């Protein structure tokens, strides 16, 4: 039987973990709990991962604008002329100008030619391999981010150790450590349409029932649920105002990053946060400076930039990393788009990041340098980058446990590698 961690073992959080029944006036208990929480979880580091589902065209996001082979391969899709020159070789897509200042400040790093050693071009297989962190093994039951939570040293885990702002629990968060999928912070509660009193009564009954459940799994999980509900309901999440003038795009990504910022501010013991961005599978009518890709890219850059701004003094605690299952073909296809490829690029943002650079080993895009004569080769294993970031930011030393079956070198994407 899987037992959850020492969630209630530490006497200091007994108040925090048990229903506030009998004796202590709720508001006092609340204040005490909040204060205890803050003491426990202040300064806790958070890794925020954004999965771009659908395979982002890394060569359009960060373009080799001087590469004549690339220009020849994309007569209708070349964006080099409008791109933002990063380093004389690579240009950022114009709609990602939100990233410009962060790159120049040295906080944003880009890794190009990143991808998986497994050359599957199936979305679902490749996502599965990236999220489980084991590119050749379909049998791995846990996700790499859940394993990461387990490998950080800490006294007690809260229900918020790993949170995903998605409707369902993502593969990356599967595993034995607490993980929570929340579609919307303000909706995370027992709900009965049109009858709040009945919902509250039901919640109370259930909390009592689950507290006495015969099954250890149901009992412990029930406690986590009700604790998570209590924390979120007490925080007045509905009226959260982003700080420092940050304005989030009104997109699902903007909304989920805003809620992640809220959770960070609430200091509830979150260590890993996850969300998704969609619409990257641009087989058809991809567009150039404007169009489908440009809109998605703008959303990504603006949402992340707003999130960073919102964080303010919390920036030291947070690193953001994007990922996508693979890249897209060098050559455009017959319908104004690109097809499934291999290498792509990712973005890493944080005060500990070796930013202002495009990392990776990418040769020019002459056809003899391409994988299968069609794709940007994978020259940096995603596990090496994920490890470098997790090691440095979350202080995880055990790569082997984080990515079983891998023991490669880590690229210098972080300023002070662990």
């Amino acid at each position, binding site marked *: 039987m*899987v037992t959850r961690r020492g969630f209630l073992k530490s006497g200091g959080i007994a108040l925090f973990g048990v229903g506030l029944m009998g004796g202590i006036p709720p508001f006092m208990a609340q204040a005490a709990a909040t204060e205890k929480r803050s003491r426990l979880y202040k300064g806790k580091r958070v890794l925020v991962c954004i999965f771009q589902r659908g395979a982002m065209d890394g060569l359009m996001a960060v373009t080799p604008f001087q590469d004549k082979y690339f220009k020849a391969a994309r007569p209708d899709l070349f964006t080099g002329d409008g791109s933002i020159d990063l380093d004389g070789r690579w240009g950022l897509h114009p709609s990602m100008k939100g990233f410009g200042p962060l790159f120049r400040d040295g906080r944003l790093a880009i890794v190009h030619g990143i991808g998986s050693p497994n050359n599957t071009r*199936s979305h*679902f*297989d490749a996502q*599965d391999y990236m999220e489980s962190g084991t590119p050749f093994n*379909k*049998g791995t*039951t846990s996700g790499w981010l859940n394993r990461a939570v387990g490998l950080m040293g800490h006294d007690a885990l809260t*229900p918020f150790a790993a949170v995903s702002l998605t*409707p*369902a*629990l993502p593969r990356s968060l599967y595993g*034995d450590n*607490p*993980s*929570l*999928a*929340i579609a919307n912070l303000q909706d*995370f*509660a*027992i*709900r*009965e*349409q049109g*009858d709040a009193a*009945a*919902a509250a*009564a*039901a919640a109370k*009954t*259930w909390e009592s*029932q*689950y507290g006495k*459940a*015969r*099954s250890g*799994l*149901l*009992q412990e*999980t*029930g406690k*986590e*649920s009700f604790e*998570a*509900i209590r924390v979120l309901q007490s925080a007045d999440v509905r009226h959260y105002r982003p700080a420092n003038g940050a304005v989030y795009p009104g997109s699902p990504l903007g909304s989920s990053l805003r809620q992640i910022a809220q959770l960070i501010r609430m200091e509830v013991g979150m260590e890993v946060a996850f969300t998704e961005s969609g619409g990257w599978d641009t*087989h*058809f*009518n991809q*567009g150039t400076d404007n*169009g489908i890709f440009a809109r998605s890219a703008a959303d990504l850059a603006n949402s992340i930039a707003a999130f960073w701004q919102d964080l303010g003094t919390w920036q030291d605690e947070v690193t953001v990393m994007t990922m996508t299952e693979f890249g897209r073909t060098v050559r455009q296809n017959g*319908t*104004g788009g690109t097809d499934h490829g291999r290498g792509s690029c990712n973005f890493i943002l944080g005060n500990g990041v070796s930013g202002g650079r495009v990392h990776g080993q990418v040769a020019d895009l002459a056809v003899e340098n391409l994988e299968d004569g069609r794709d940007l080769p994978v020259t940096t294993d995603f596990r090496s980058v994920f490890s470098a970031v997790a090691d440095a930011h979350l202080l995880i030393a055990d790569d082997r446990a984080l990515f079983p079956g891998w023991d490669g070198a880590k690229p210098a994407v972080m300023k002070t590698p662990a």
Partner: protein
Amino acid sequence: MKMAALLLIAQLISGGRKVGPVEAARHRFPYRKAGLTERQAAAHLLSRFTYGARPGDVDAVMKEGLERWMDRQLGARLPDDSLDLRLQPYDALTLSNEQVQALYPRRGRVLKMAIRDGIINKDSVKADRAAYREEIRGYMAQKGYKPEQELFRQFISQKILRAAYSNNQLLEVMTDFWFNHFNVSITKNDCAEFIPAYERDVIRPNAMGKFGSLLLQTARSPAMLFYLDNFNSSGVKGVNENYAREVMELHTLGVDGGYTQQDVTQAARVLTGWTIFPMNANGRNFINRFSPGQLERRGFVHDGDFLFNPNRHDKGEKVVLGHLFPAGGGYEEGVELLDMLAHHPSTAKFISRELAVRFVSDDPPQSLVDKMARTFLEKDGDIRQVLRTMVESPEFWSPNAVQEKTKSPFELAIGAVRSLRADIRQPYPLYVWISRMGEKMYYYPAPTGFPDKGAYWINAGSLLNRMNFGLALATGQVPGVRVELGAEAQEAGIAIGSPENQRR
């Protein structure tokens, strides 16, 4: 009345009549020795072999006699007139694979056809997305195509209706079990449209028969041939090992079943040439140039959607698990391979354990698994016989096993509908809730299928959704599902979301 049913689900009610010596001899099920009353035993049978007891079911099982009830469920031949009536509007469900392909083309194919027919070109759509969608819609209407989503909506709906209303409950449970065991997924575009026929023609008809037949039929189905890529596996152009690996690892022997990478490679060679009978015009034109006699003489085997293509078959000598397949073999050696796997002792253990996990507990006793495996081997993989051995064993009735399993979201939802005798007018909203609770039916991407253990289903977020589902269903807030509880709604909602009700 309805609350009583719910409480039955949640707690086993004690009490029952005393059994005399003559009667005791008649009883094959050893529940008394395990300390269960007849009523408790009836409830346990319903809990395990159906999607949930309805009000009056426990009494009905006792009246019929537990063993006789089980026999009839194993027979799976009870009339289902009212279910059939509910299924009548779902016209997509009686289509053959060929008809499905013609009527419900994939989105990508529609686009390509529209471009080819000059309806759409890439310049015309740059400006206006709404206009583009309208063009596609018009094109589809003109050609008589229906959106693929409609096919899946009907397919998902029928599963919900069958589980809720079929009298042959065990057949539905076993269909679900074997589908999950031989998992295929809508997430894989190539095989998605062939999945409704897969469940209807391959899984359900073979769910209670011989394992070897079921295995062979899955191997020959378009759904599986596409899902695990064997349709493309060729001795000439490149062997694909995906199916060969999964058929050993997941379908038969199990990962510790004693095979090596060599065996996988050799098995893949045996299965080259196993592909799909062409459904498109080009493929048909090619194959129709030969008469059936000519095809047979050349070594082709055509049966429904299945085609064995000898031109793609590796005819060399192979050795798999120590068994020699001499050179020059054709279709028959693949049948022989699958037959060998179906009768292997590791398979007997692997399948028996999986059945015991489904019907007994997350960690079933080895003694029970061994007994079932013995029956599996002795009775030629007869699934009914293995189930009989299981239900006649004391381990099945052990108090450790009773209510030990955790309901999947599907089981929770259907069980609640049955216990309330709710009327499902529109199944799809139930599916939305089942997905929300963590089980997007038919969309599990990996061939392993949904894990069958509590720890997979239960986490803080999914538990909250289960509780909210209870309240929503009971208070009539799940569209398309009619419940009439009045003042009892709140209590019923709480019962559905209660910890006891998460178990079966």
